[in-house]
């Protein structure tokens, strides 16, 4: 059985084992290594991608459930000369340390801020619960995210 889906806007026809994880296909077949393979159990969020616009953990999604779906990975979000607001804030606040968590963090937080454009710090922290930073650099991440709404309002 062939499964048709799109990855970062590009069509993909997949005909391998339908139980294989989206994460495995992204990293090993497509060489899209932004999504990281860490806990493999949905706890750490390092493999977060968007499925039809909503953040989900790619380590627990079998390919067989993705027919017709649109997947966005960190490689499909923004561009080197046109970062999205979360990516730019992470650069501006020097957030990235080892780099393991931040692709998933960016994908989760981009969706969260689209739904909650003026979050409190507590709301940001609650939204971050599924993305573990093993360098424990949480406060700087929260600072970066909290800066986005005021910065955008100043520009508009």
């Amino acid at each position, binding site marked *: 059985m062939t499964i048709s889906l799109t990855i970062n806007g590009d069509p993909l026809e997949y005909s391998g084992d339908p139980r294989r994880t989206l994460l495995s296909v992204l990293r090993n077949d497509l060489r899209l290594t932004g999504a990281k393979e860490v806990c493999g159990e949905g706890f750490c969020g390092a493999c977060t991608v968007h499925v039809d616009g*909503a953040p989900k953990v790619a380590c627990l999604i079998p390919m067989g459930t993705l027919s017709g779906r649109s997947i966005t990975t960190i490689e499909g979000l923004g561009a080197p000369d046109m970062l999205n607001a979360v990516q730019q804030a992470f650069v501006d606040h020097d957030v990235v340390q080892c780099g393991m968590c931040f692709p998933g963090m960016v994908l989760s937080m981009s969706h969260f801020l689209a739904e909650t454009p003026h979050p409190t710090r507590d709301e940001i922290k609650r939204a971050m*619960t*599924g993305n573990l930073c093993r360098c424990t650099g949480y406060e700087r991440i929260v600072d970066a995210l909290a800066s986005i709404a005021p910065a955008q309002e100043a520009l508009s």
Partner: protein
Amino acid sequence: MIHASSLQEALDHQASGAVLFAGGTWAMRGPMDRPFVTLSGIPGLDLIEGQGGQLILGALVTHEALARALSTDPGRAALALAAGKSATPAVRRMATLGGNICTADFASPDLVPALLVLGACVTIVTAQGVEDLPLADYLATPPGPHVLTHVKLPAVTGRSTHVRLMQRQAGEYPLAALSMALKADPDGTIRDLRIAVGAVEARPRRWPALEAALIGCTPDPAALRGIARDLSDFIGRDAVDAPGWYRTRVLPGLVARAFATLTAPEGR
């Protein structure tokens, strides 16, 4: 992976050894040498529908959808809190109501104690037909091969809440979880009380001894912990996140916390 388009088809594949697949957050962590049969193509399993005071929920309703649907339903706050705080935001978008109930190996399903105190019944389909049974009976005596299709919650007459003890505030399983539903007279006399405990034993269950001791009483909040300690018959399970003795030791504190929430002026 097999895509069932009807309940009969799912039952047939289950009888041949396939594992039912809902949100996948548990199944994908198990052995991958089994065929999965997905239920997402079966109509009606994502239903959220009020009928009079009753609420009918499809087995494929996600935790996120459940928390959102119940956000304006204070009587069912226990379930809204359980759905909205379990696991992580991304997992809540995937994990389902039916999966939370049916995963027999999972000791810490947050939804189950909340469903128990809200008086939930489950609808199952077997080769013999459709059957409604109380969730407590379903958990106590798991039926043979079946598909759990819906959960039915009766009309609400009191307040409810769900409290969890965590190592971190979120993102992992609770060491102990407790749901409580309370109906009290204006003078504080308890008319109806349901308490259910999750994560402490292998499966969530009600706490009938404590319920019986408190119904008809106007308990002194300061004495609650002692009463709960005396009436606890839970045998905590040892696991990597906490030893069994610790899980039972914290239960009286969770009882006091839930009761305080439900008896506060704006409590839920």
